[in-house]
């Protein structure tokens, strides 16, 4: 590892932190606006999350008297930092990931667990019974969605393993879209994997109907009940960044297409067109995986979360995997 590499890594990390926070909050604002319209409300302006952060930063940063103070304060910081870290490994806007070649898809799966673990640690450290219940629920939710998520990742990697290359590399997956490597059975299988991934999203991002760990109406915010001021601002930003990162991952796995070549664009115009197209794809993924679902359904109970993920969604993902295997075995191609 050279000094030059480290210098550019530092510079790019700072830039990506800025991009992640800006787009995280922007998409959060869009999500809130659309949900409000779906529910017949005017809703807050799209810039509201930025205003919320500014307001939170000016509020008291209360630490409960029996809390483990260092862990309580460190958890939001680690949660946000690890959420931003995700974007160093995921291709954004038609470019390779900043740390491409330095970490693969399996690493991204593990990195997605860190923000949740940080929140669990912060919840347990806050000495509140509500937060403790929220932390328990977050652990159970994590156990639940990891299985179908792992099945989806393995299925895609297995299907691409027939092609020469590093199947867990994000650049390799992005340059070999799964839709171009399947027949009829494989297409149905890939759609089932996409559905599983879309349903995993609200669990991973603690959104309705899988937001049992926060559940404002039952446990007053659960994990975040004791957080306020700048600590809550960090968790608030992390929430937006995670949405952006997860939607970017879905785009990289399932829709890694650019638009510049289709429009015969070159140079700067092609970069801008691809980046804008990427933002549109991220918005569409967020809309179907988060906004639409959270506006349309009610919250599950914790036992229903486990059953939904371990039985229903895992079965759908496994069936998708089996169809991809049959697709390779029987090799049914398009007419």
């Amino acid at each position, binding site marked *: *590892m050279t000094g030059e*590499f*480290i210098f550019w*890594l*530092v510079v790019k*990390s700072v830039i990506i*932190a800025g991009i992640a926070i800006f787009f995280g909050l922007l998409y959060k604002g869009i999500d809130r606006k659309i949900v409000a319209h779906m529910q017949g409300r005017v809703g807050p302006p799209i810039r509201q999350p930025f205003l919320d952060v500014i307001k*939170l*930063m*000016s*509020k*008291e*940063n*209360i*630490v*409960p*008297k*029996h809390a483990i103070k260092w862990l309580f304060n460190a958890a*939001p*910081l680690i949660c*946000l*930092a*690890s959420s*931003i*870290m995700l974007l*160093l490994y995921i291709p954004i806007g038609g470019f390779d990931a900043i*740390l491409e*070649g*330095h*970490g*693969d898809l*399996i*690493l991204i799966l593990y990195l997605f667990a860190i923000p949740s673990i940080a929140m669990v640690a912060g919840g347990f450290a*806050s*000495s*509140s*019974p*509500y937060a*403790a219940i929220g*932390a*328990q*629920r977050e*652990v*159970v939710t994590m*156990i639940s969605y990891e299985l179908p998520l792992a099945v989806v990742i393995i299925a895609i990697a297995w299907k691409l393993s027939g092609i020469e290359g*590093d*199947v*867990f590399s994000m650049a390799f997956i992005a340059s070999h879209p799964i839709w171009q490597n399947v027949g009829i059975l494989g297409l149905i299988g890939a759609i089932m994997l996409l559905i599983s991934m879309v349903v995993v999203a609200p669990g991973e991002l603690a959104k309705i109907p899988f937001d*049992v760990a926060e559940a404002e109406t039952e446990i*007053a915010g659960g994990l975040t009940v*004791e957080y306020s*001021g*700048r600590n809550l*601002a*960090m968790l608030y930003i992390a929430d937006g960044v995670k949405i952006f990162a997860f939607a970017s991952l879905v785009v990289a796995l399932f829709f890694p297409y650019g638009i510049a070549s289709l429009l015969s664009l070159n140079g700067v115009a092609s970069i801008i067109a691809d980046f804008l197209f990427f933002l549109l794809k991220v918005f569409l993924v967020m809309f179907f995986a988060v906004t639409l679902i959270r506006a349309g359904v009610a919250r599950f109970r*914790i*036992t229903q*979360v*486990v059953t939904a993920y*371990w039985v229903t969604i895992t079965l759908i993902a496994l069936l998708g995997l089996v169809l991809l295997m049959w697709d390779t075995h029987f090799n049914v191609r398009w007419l």
Partner: protein
Amino acid sequence: MLETGFGYWDAIAWIVAFIVICIVVYIIRSMGKKEHRKEAEEPFFSGVELPDEKVHVKASNIYWGFIESMKGYYDVMKKMHDGIINNYISWFVFIAVLLLITLFAKEVIP
């Protein structure tokens, strides 16, 4: 670079980037208000005062939601783990036979 043959991870690059981003986040966080009133430190518990000691949650409670939803599975498992050594040995023999059949069926059956 750590490599397993399938996956890879450059831990040094991860640590460098993580430290840089932690510093950025720390700077943003330090722009916020630090102080708070002493009387606001009481944890929220719907207006009820919490006992003056740390609130602990037993480790057995952590997986409650999981165990509750998988009750059918755990009931069967608990029944099987009855503490009678003869039953454990029977299971061991049964599984060993199944494995042997699976491994050598092709060679034994014409």
